[in-house]
């Protein structure tokens, strides 16, 4: 799977060459090793899942990708270049957007304003111009609002456009967070447990949105998820972690029949 050539998936999507590669990442917090010598790649246009039992180091891994944690050892390669240690906002500016396991929205602001914040890196008019809403700022807002409205339409949240986020149920908040991440027009989208705490119907909706985002915008998606059914249905390839180590990597079918994975996590092989 380390070949650089594009290939076609069964359902007709094109998966491109490697866009991000983790090389021998080790992350320590004091004496605790959260991640030990993990390497894997993410290819353009694919849905890549990271799974593992609680405390396996999945979220730490995602935080390494998003630049929130700097690993003590190993290298992160992004678009064929080694990435120097950088701040999360610099990572965001490179086109990597994320959602959070515990929703991190601006609760007092409307859905629309929350999603608009995702456009921040596309706005470059000065503070004064924005405060007075004159000249460049006005044109810029109109242009960005148009993009945001397309995302609102895409995720079917028109009816809550003007509702303060604090008043929304959990499932919708998750969707708003996805909208904000999408507003940044990311080339890689990181989703930290997008289905956590959702009921079956909300999970179905969210799965559909994730697939649609990948399909319509060609966005590369890396996600952490607990729900096995969802992971196996959605992803093209899966990395399995346990106690900070990688114990499996491959297509859902390969992972499903991997004995180490079964022992560590799945318990039994599902047909």
């Amino acid at each position: 799977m380390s070949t650089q050539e594009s290939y076609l998936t069964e359902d007709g999507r094109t998966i491109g060459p490697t866009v991000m590669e983790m090389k021998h990442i080790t992350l320590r917090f004091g004496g605790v090793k959260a991640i030990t010598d993990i390497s894997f790649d993410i290819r353009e246009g694919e849905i890549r899942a990271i799974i593992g039992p609680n405390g396996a180091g999945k979220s730490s891994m995602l935080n390494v990708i998003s630049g929130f944690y700097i690993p003590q050892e190993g290298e992160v390669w992004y678009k064929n270049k080694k990435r120097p240690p950088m701040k999360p906002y610099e990572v965001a500016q490179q086109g990597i957007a994320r959602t959070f396991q515990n929703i991190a929205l601006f609760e007092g602001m409307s859905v629309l304003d929350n999603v608009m914040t995702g456009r921040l890196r596309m706005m470059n008019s000065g503070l004064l111009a924005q405060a007075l809403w004159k000249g460049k700022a006005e044109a810029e807002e109109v242009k960005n609002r148009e993009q945001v409205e397309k995302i609102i339409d895409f995720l079917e949240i028109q009816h809550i456009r003007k509702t303060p986020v604090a008043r929304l149920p959990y499932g919708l908040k998750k969707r708003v967070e996805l909208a904000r991440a999408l507003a940044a027009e990311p080339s890689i989208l990181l989703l930290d447990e997008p289905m956590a705490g959702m009921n079956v119907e909300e999970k179905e909706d969210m799965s559909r949105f994730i697939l649609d985002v990948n399909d319509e915008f060609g966005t590369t998606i890396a996600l952490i998820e607990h729900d096995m059914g969802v992971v196996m249905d959605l992803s093209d390839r899966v990395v399995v972690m346990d106690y900070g180590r990688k114990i499996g990597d491959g297509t859902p079918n390969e992972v499903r029949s991997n004995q180490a994975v079964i022992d560590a996590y799945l318990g039994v092989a599902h047909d």
Partner: protein
Amino acid sequence: MKIRFGGLGLWEWAVWEEENLAKTSGTAEGLLSIPALLHRNATLYADKDAYREKAFGIWQRWTWSSTEKEIEALALGLVNLGVAEGDFIAIIGRNRPYFYWAMVAVQSVGAVPVPVYQDSAAEEMEYILSHCGARYAIVEDQEQVDKIIDIQGHLHQFEHMIYVDPRGMRKYDHHQLHRFADIQKQGRASYFECIDDLNARRSKLNYDSICVMLYTSGTTGKPKGVVLSNRNVIETAKNSAEFDNLGVGEEVLAYLPMAWVGDFIFSVGQAYWTGFCVNCPESPDTMMTDLREIGPTYYFAPPRVFETQLTNVMIRMEDAGSFKYKVFHHFMSHAKKVGGDILDGNEVSFGDRLKYAVGNLLVYGPLKDTLGLGRVRVGYTAGEAIGPEIFDFYRSLGINLKQLYGQTEATVFITVQPDGEVRADTVGVPAPDVDIKIAENGEIFYRSPGVFVEYYNNPESTASTKDADGWVATGDAGFFEETTGHLRIIDRAKDVGKTAGGHMFAPKYVENKLKFYPDILEAVLFGNGKDRCVAFINIDLTAVGNWAERTNIAYASYQELAGHPRVLDIIQEHVETVNKSVAADPMLVGCQIHRFLILHKELDADDGEMTRTRKVRRAIVEDKFKDLIEALYDDVDAVSTTTEVTYEDGRRGSISATLALRNAAVVPNVEKVAAE
């Protein structure tokens, strides 16, 4: 003539209309089809908005002249695709300009539009599409495309599908699948090859051509395809528009299912006849916001919508501060006293008028604005009986809400309430050009220019519904009030039966009385041929849920709340009150409810228990819950049952429950005849 209409207010419209009225009403000759009306509107009202749809947060607009271009492009595309005259074309989607254009484009090429409820399950669609032998379908999105692909194997004549929303459609095999915009593009490209053919087809349309075929919701048995001619639709639109002085300046919000005859008359018939603008909401969930932004002047809603709105207002007032709460209730009780009379133009004292004006400033005006009903000049409700309290609430606010009685076979209008003669318990006087007679058994018959042509491919049903002289049986029982000449409906004629005691059994009459309570969403009464009546109740989850929240009763689901003893107490109280009011009518004294239960699930169209227009299918409910009815007639206190349910995604499951059965006090049947 070039006039810009952008900034015209209602008043200027009225003036403009008056100046041009001669033109609109004098041109009835030649206007024998909807496409002909389209052409007139595109000439007469070229720059006036014909359609608006909210998309991406902004109201997108199409004038009559751009509408004509869009429709022509689509019609040319259909000709180019091979649509033949007389073909049936299914149209499946929510209210969007594209589907209204599709209907008129289909008519333009001499084919017949067949709008289908977009929430129908695949099997229901299969029945309709194979019954009319549709060769084409114009649908909204992936969801509908998937449904039709599922059933395509069973549809022998079916050929092509056209979809509007391209999302998720890229990977589909596009041999027989086309994008709406592409068909229009191909239509424009093939203008010179196809325009002569299109013009020839358009010129053949006349008053007897089929305008639309609408499938009835099928309260009993399979849906029937009601064929309506241009005469039916245009004559009805003309008469009803004149009855209510509808003009080109009206604004309507199209949100009711396109497959329903009412939407076809309001959003196509009347809109094309008068040239008013049809506004389409952004999504079904934003309907209330969009309603408020548009502020329609002409508005139709089934009683359920008014009920829901009123319930929401009352719930929100419960949470309001005590000052606001008091102001609201003070002025609402004043409105209740004089509001209706002021609206009807009756005599009201100066003091009361003054107080009403203050109330209008403080409460009624802002409330109407919040509800989106601030500009309503003519409002209608129909389909089911509306609770008198709900009806009076809206009228007391100064909203001219009226009732009409109609059905698909009549192209809607049978009776209608004229301004100033509005009451909650009648459905009005015969609509213009409608004759009505009442048969001996109480069944209502009518004859009008709107009477349907036939049930498609079903001569037996056509013959049993419409006689040689054009009289149509409504299946409803009713009578004319001698003093006012207004029609009152009792029940479905076939549902009216007799109890074992020889009393009249009119289930709907009692069910409606129950449903007027905000706590009760649905009720089904049984007892035909029995010695006493029993009932199923569905509680209203919004109203009862709010009550539960206020009284600190925790619940996880409809089922749990429905089984709560205190909820049962409340419902029992309602049932007993209804019993008293039913017993007051000597004819109906046998309809009192002796025992009842609260169903463990909400009656649902997906389970076949209701029609898509949310009317209870009595026979199916009776059959499905046989065990519960038997239990109600036995002397047990509780019954366990398992019911199969269908989820929204089509999967099936089952729910089990143990239901408590309650006795309700009845007023003893005193033999009044003997006493007299």
